[in-house]
């Protein structure tokens, strides 16, 4: 094992940026007490506990990396990992890791659950510094516990149709995204941040959208589209979405995919966001 950990971290948020994180509408119900209780249990947890992370609720890059290394090894340790995971497992084992770490705001209804607080995630683009190749897109919960991850296409998968789509789904820097929007749509955005949420299509935690504000509207830029919504946009309550399955299907069918996205905003509403046409 190499003695040094090569961790090149591009930390794309600062303390000020965290303070500016935003959501159009906060959760309907506060679970603050439950969140505090979970945090207390986590901070008191010992390594044999299922909710143990070496740096609970990490803030610094080194703490996030420590939780990633611990969490991944805890889940996969001692197992024969599958072929697609071998480069990741090897890089972890060799300490040949480089990271790009992003903070992704969580607008899914899971933001509003009791237990583990999930206002945001950490998305780690993990690269093997000895080869320069990406080995994983890895998501940690705000708590530092492992959420989910992907591995890139293997050599055998490299020629499959999905491989270039996956590889291209790397989020741009926030400033670059705003610049693209300005050029393509003529819209000047403020307060950009990465956002994951459910809907059709979804802003995935491993390929989040860039959310920003402009002229009283909220915009989401992702999957090659720009969509907008505001407080007056057509929307549905979670109660409606949950009332019956048939009602949920009706709502989903009422969305015109050529012109609209259905987007979850925490547990408060499912809003129909309209696609913005690029300027000619």
């Amino acid at each position, binding site marked *: 094992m190499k003695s040094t950990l090569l961790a090149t971290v591009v930390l794309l948020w600062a303390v000020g940026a965290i303070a500016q994180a935003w959501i159009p509408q906060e959760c309907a119900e506060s679970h603050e007490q439950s969140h505090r209780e979970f945090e207390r249990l986590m901070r008191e947890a010992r390594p044999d*506990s299922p909710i143990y992370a070496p740096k609970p609720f990490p803030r610094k890059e080194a703490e996030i990396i420590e939780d990633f290394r611990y969490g991944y090894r805890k889940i996969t340790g001692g197992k024969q990992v599958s072929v697609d995971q071998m480069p990741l497992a090897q890089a972890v084992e060799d300490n040949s890791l480089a990271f790009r770490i992003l903070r992704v705001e969580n607008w899914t*209804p899971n933001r509003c659950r009791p*237990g583990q607080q999930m206002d945001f995630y950490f998305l780690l683009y993990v690269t093997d510094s000895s080869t320069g190749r990406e080995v994983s897109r890895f998501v940690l*919960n705000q708590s530092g516990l492992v959420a989910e*991850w992907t591995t890139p296409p293997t050599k055998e998968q490299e020629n499959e*149709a*999905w491989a270039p789509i996956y590889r291209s789904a790397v989020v741009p820097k926030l400033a670059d995204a705003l610049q693209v929007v300005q050029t393509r749509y003529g819209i000047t955005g403020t307060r950009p941040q990465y956002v994951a949420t459910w809907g059709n299509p979804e802003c995935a935690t491993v390929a989040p959208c860039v959310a920003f504000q402009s002229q009283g509207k909220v915009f989401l830029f992702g999957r090659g589209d720009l969509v907008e919504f505001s407080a007056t946009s057509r929307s549905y309550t979670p109660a409606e979405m949950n009332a019956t399955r048939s009602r949920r299907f009706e709502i989903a*069918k009422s969305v015109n995919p050529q012109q609209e996205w259905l987007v979850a905003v925490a547990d408060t509403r499912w809003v129909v966001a309209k696609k913005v046409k690029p300027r000619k």
Partner: protein
Amino acid sequence: MRRTWILRGAGALLLAAGLVAGSCIPQDHKLNIPYRAQEQFNYCTPAAVLMWRLYDGLVTVSQTTIFNWMGGTGNTNQINVANAVNYFTNTRDAYWDSGSPTTYRQMAARQITAFDRSIPSIVVINYDHVVIVNGGSWHTDPNYRVWDEVFAHDPDPFWGANRYFSAGSWIYSFCPPGNRYCDQIISSGATYDWSTNYTTYNDTKIYGWDHDLGGPLPY
């Protein structure tokens, strides 16, 4: 196709034998389902059914064929999905397994039982998306199995063929507290004795949240 079943059955027996023998080594079981990305934004279900079909050794059909067979709209209902599995794959006993956050453990136990027998399941996640479960891994702690991760093929190419959920995160994706419905399509034959796994399955031990208890588990 019967041969495939027999081979799978043999694999499951070997796996079961290992477990019965009290093997304490971590287990990692992947089905190796062929992956296909969805070809249209609302083709996640046809892509999942197609993957199941290819796993069963049948020749490919277009995702549009499956899409049209299910009614030609996205957001199809779960009965149609189960029917499509029964029509387009070698599985004839797929059914819509409907649950809620109070029965998520039973649902997860049926998924695991299907894993053990190397039979896929299609699971609705994040309200209206589906993935096909490609396997999982677990360890013993000390006398029962604790699931560590779930492998899935996500038809959305942004996730791709190699999507992994920690066990806790999996529950939050397919059956979080507060959801009224949780849905999956599974084979009844592959899960007929799922209740044996129910008693040994405790996903929430991983990440300390139990829907049924309504709070964090004490440690």
